[in-house]
């Protein structure tokens, strides 16, 4: 559905994206995981044709470059910054952006109604956005991205700064979009989100794609061993083990006061790949 080939983008001396090769399949939910400044938003901007790459190319497979307005119409974007008008209502925002996408008349009215219902904003549809909570604004940001029913969605950190309840609501919306068969590219620096939502995850750091696979495979190949932490005689020991259960059996119950286990996760994968934590 989306193919990035040898993509490179620099700002002066800063290399934002460095030789990125990536292909996202139709119907897939693809996560781009990386810390702030890794190049995720630049990659999104390149993918939707807002930025010209210094090298490489972007292709919506079967349709062409997103630099073409007709191709862009097949993409929906929820930018990291809330790209909505505070002094318009949710209904007016949706109607305006729907019109820009070529929707008119009955089709526009129905899509606006659908989008409001989809993100649960019908009761506040005619209130000005400036009166909304952060979570409601995020949901509207997502609704505007899908107003024209695009098959490809790029969601750039869509849960930044929202409360847990709104975050769950947004997750439900995104999973519903996935069930509808849309292709979704999801950027985040929250590993839990990538683990929970994404079919495949690409780990990005300093503009480079360090690894790309399903979460279990990434963990298996880059996460390292599980760590068994046992408490004996007032001391705690950390023991790396391929099979923590077998290791626990080997240690036996003598003097064992307690134990816990740390399984490798995407955080560990990132740490192993870069020597830094995701939130550094």
């Amino acid at each position, binding site marked *: 559905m989306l193919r990035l080939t040898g993509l490179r983008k620099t700002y002066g001396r800063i290399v934002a994206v460095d030789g990125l090769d990536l292909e996202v399949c139709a119907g897939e939910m693809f996560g781009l995981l990386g810390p702030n400044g890794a190049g995720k938003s630049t990659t999104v*901007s390149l993918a939707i044709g807002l930025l010209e790459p210094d090298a490489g190319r972007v292709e919506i497979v079967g349709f062409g470059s997103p630099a073409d307005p*007709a191709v862009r119409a097949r993409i*929906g974007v929820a*930018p990291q910054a809330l*790209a909505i008008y505070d002094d318009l209502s949710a209904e007016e925002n949706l109607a305006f*952006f729907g019109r*820009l996408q070529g929707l*008119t008349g009955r089709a526009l009215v129905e899509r606006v109604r659908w989008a409001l219902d989809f993100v649960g904003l019908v009761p506040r549809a005619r209130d000005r956005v400036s009166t909304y909570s952060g979570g409601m604004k995020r949901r509207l940001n997502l609704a505007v991205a899908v107003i024209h029913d695009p098959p490809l969605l790029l969601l750039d950190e869509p849960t930044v700064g929202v409360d847990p309840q709104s975050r769950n609501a947004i997750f439900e919306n995104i999973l519903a979009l996935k069930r509808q068969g849309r292709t979704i590219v999801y950027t985040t620096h929250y590993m839990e989100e990538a683990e929970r939502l994404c079919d495949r995850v690409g780990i990005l750091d300093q503009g480079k794609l360090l690894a790309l696979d399903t979460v279990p495979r990434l963990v298996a190949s880059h996460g390292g061993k599980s760590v068994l932490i046992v408490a004996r005689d007032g001391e705690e020991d950390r023991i790396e083990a391929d099979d923590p259960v077998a290791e626990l059996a080997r240690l036996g119950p003598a003097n064992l006061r307690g134990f816990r286990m740390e399984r490798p996760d995407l955080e560990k994968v990132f740490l192993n790949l870069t020597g830094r934590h995701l939130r550094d």
Partner: protein
Amino acid sequence: MGTILAMMVKDLKLLARDRMGSIFTFIFPLVMAIFFGTIFSGTGPASRALTLALVDEDGTPESRAFADTLGASPEFQIEPMTREAAREAVRLGRRTAYVALPPGFGEARRRMFYGEPPEIEVGLDPSREAEGGMIQGLLTRHLSQQMQELFGRGDRMEAWIEETRASLDTARGLPAERRATIQRFFGELGRFQASIRDSGAGADSGRAGGGWQPARFRTADIARVRRGPRNAYDVSFPQGVMWAVLSTAYGFALSLVMERTRGTLVRLRMAPISRGQILLGKAGGCLFTIVTVSTVLLLIGALVFNVRPNSWGLLAAAVLSSAIGFVGIMMLISVMGRSQRGVSGLGWAAMMAMSMTGGAMVPLFVMPPWMQTASQISPVRWGIIAIEGAIWRDFTVQQMLLPCAILVAIGVVGFAVGVRVFRWTESEA
């Protein structure tokens, strides 16, 4: 076209919901136009009349009729008072003067050729000699008008003659010879008046054909060649319009930058429309707002402050040219800085410079010659010249071409440069 229209409507909604923006775009320029128009007019239109306190100590039908005449006069603003209150009002400067009709005023008015004439007391500050002379002149005119009415109506004239002859009989201190002479005069005058009535000329019992009039005036309308504005509002309203135009252009320039900084520009660019269409939408909103606000201000000027253009057609051309010119300025302001704060600061400075040099603060015609020459670099000057040209400078179509062409050229060049230089992403900025 539909998308450009949608963007225009969106911008107009946003402007209408932005209270501060609306104040700076419309209310502030209107207040400026009215304020400067009023202070340069000296006083408001209603206060052109002389303010007088009227003291009627006579209380006769004649004194009341005279008071009514003065009250109906456009030259005076009359307020009845007691003598003490009237003196105090003049002393404190609340009234220009007082006019007192002392006891005996009515009786003296009834007789004409004997006794003392009616007395009127005018009280005012001795330093206001000019106003004193004007007041006395106007009072004399109103007294004469009453006489003129009396002599012009046969029925009243005859009644007055009868009353006067009767009162002559009882008049004290009048020498017998003089009394007889006046009686003869009124006798002849009564017979003369009766002859007019009997001859049929008095069929109209009101204004008898032979009724006396000092003169009959005919007026011929000769429009004087006018040089300069009719009133101060002719100057202040074009200035107010240019303030509105500048505020609108500045507001739209900022809104364009805010589209970028707040991220909505990303969405606009995701729509299947070109960059040119996005900017045309913004330009269309700006153009429409400038034309609308200018039109409303000028209509208020015309309906309330007597700002009457010599040519509505030329005025429309001036407003449209100004709008086009300042759409270009809007685009240039939007690329003046790299950040919203930068554009805000530099844009404001540019607006101030344009308005100061262009005549939006100080009228062009009161500027020294070198300043008038320097003002030619300011688009505001050409906007004001064009609007004034249609209102009071008596521009012909040919004369209007120059400012309008300059404004349109500024608009086209400014828009082209702005489109070329505009930064579409924050990273570019």
